């Protein structure tokens, strides 16, 4: 069963590139991805550009409204995701816990709806 792992962290809180913390973070993401791949659970994943690059679109009465910014102005924002195929929630939780974002912020684990 597939789950989306949505990584929520405070923007701008990531360690500076080149620092040891940054290297550690990259290594952490590497290990997380590797665990998912070895378990044959990896179905995809990406980091997102920060929320200043976001645009919101809504359509009401046939009129399209486009605004600058993310869906909601919250302290923590989605910064990336993984799509994993797991045997159960516990396995998805295990993968989520490996993601460095879980230590800095929170990872939401949401099951994919099948029709």
């Amino acid at each position, binding site marked *: *069963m597939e789950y989306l792992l949505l990584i929520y962290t405070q923007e701008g809180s990531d360690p500076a590139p080149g620092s040891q913390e940054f290297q550690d973070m990259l290594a952490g993401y590497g290990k997380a991805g590797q665990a998912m791949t070895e378990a044959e659970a990896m179905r995809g994943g990406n980091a997102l550009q920060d929320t200043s690059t976001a645009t919101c679109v809504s359509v009401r009465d046939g009129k399209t409204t486009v605004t600058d910014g993310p869906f909601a102005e919250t302290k923590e924002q989605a910064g990336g995701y993984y799509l994993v195929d*797991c*045997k*159960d*929630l*516990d*396995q998805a*939780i*295990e993968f989520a816990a490996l993601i460095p974002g879980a230590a800095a912020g929170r990872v939401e*684990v949401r*099951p994919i709806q099948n029709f």
Partner: protein
Amino acid sequence: MRDLSLAEDALQDACVKALTTWEEHGIPDNPRAWLVTAGRNRAIDDLRRKTSLKAKSETLKLLEEEGRQQQGEADEADDRLLLMFLCCHPALAEEAQLALTLRALGGLTTEEIASAFLVPVPTMAQRLVRAKRKIRLANVAYRLPTEDMIDQRLSRVMTVLYLIFNEGYAARSGKAVVRTDLCYESIRLTRILGHLKPENPEIKGLLALMLLHDARRTARTNAEGTMIALEYQDRSQWNHRQIELGDKVLREALVMGRAGPYLLQAAISGVHAKAPDYASTDWQEIVGLYDRLCRVIPGPVVRLNRAFAVSMLKGAEVALPLVAELEGHPAMEAYQPFHATRADLLARSGCSEEAARTFDRAIELTDNEVQRDFLKAKRARLRNTR
């Protein structure tokens, strides 16, 4: 089956089938395995009828596969442990964990659980429906947690059982001080958990704690429903056989090694339970146990209880500074026992004015009518106050 409602229906059907079939053909060698197989087959039939031809459901495929692989028996003990882990899964809301544990393991009806937690039946029904839905849609696993999670998850199960017991022992709101059926259920389930994990001293500690507290239940209120403090309880009304049992479990756990929080609290309860009267209570022993408990559970609540024990050993004046230390702590501001204890110490130190004010604050914070009356009576006994 990943679907508790489906499982409940299947079990019910299997039991009905068993009643008729076993009567005719005799009880099978492994009744449990028979029921599990019958239940599984019923669920498969059920799902086949409901599932469209296009999408053979995940569950149906798994059940059929399982059925082919496991013609043999399921270990009864493991099943109940797995069910406990399922009901107490952290992915479920805490109130749902309690309700689900009572439903699936305690076999209580929705009405009984609603009444136990003083919520309307539809509210409780909704709570259970939502929890089962989450289990199904998020695929909360019916399996043992992994090595690195098992301690945490076991701890969660114990917390749920402890919360259920507490709810029964000292109801936080409403008229009655105790609701006995919840005490009975939590003791029963903790005992089962202990059988399933005999090498775990904390589970024994939790069981001992429940047994010892519960043994004093009937003496805690009088015929009118008024609450009676430990100091004034008629100890002849304590269930001494249950105290002996609790003490036995306690001693078994203590020899197993390092004592955890439940075990230490049980030991404290044990000291009270063994004293023939309040005056003979070994407060020295209790203070020593609280010293250990403070190290295991740091924080103001244990220190507050320790301060009270110190007041019994060395006098209220000695204990007051210990309570004063906790005053700034944010958790204590709205914590009823903090104000109730402080008021008691102030009263015993002769500071009647301040005691009265502090009793008032404690009364404000008490949502249990019986406990409120108890505090009001203590306040009324203060001298030189309005």
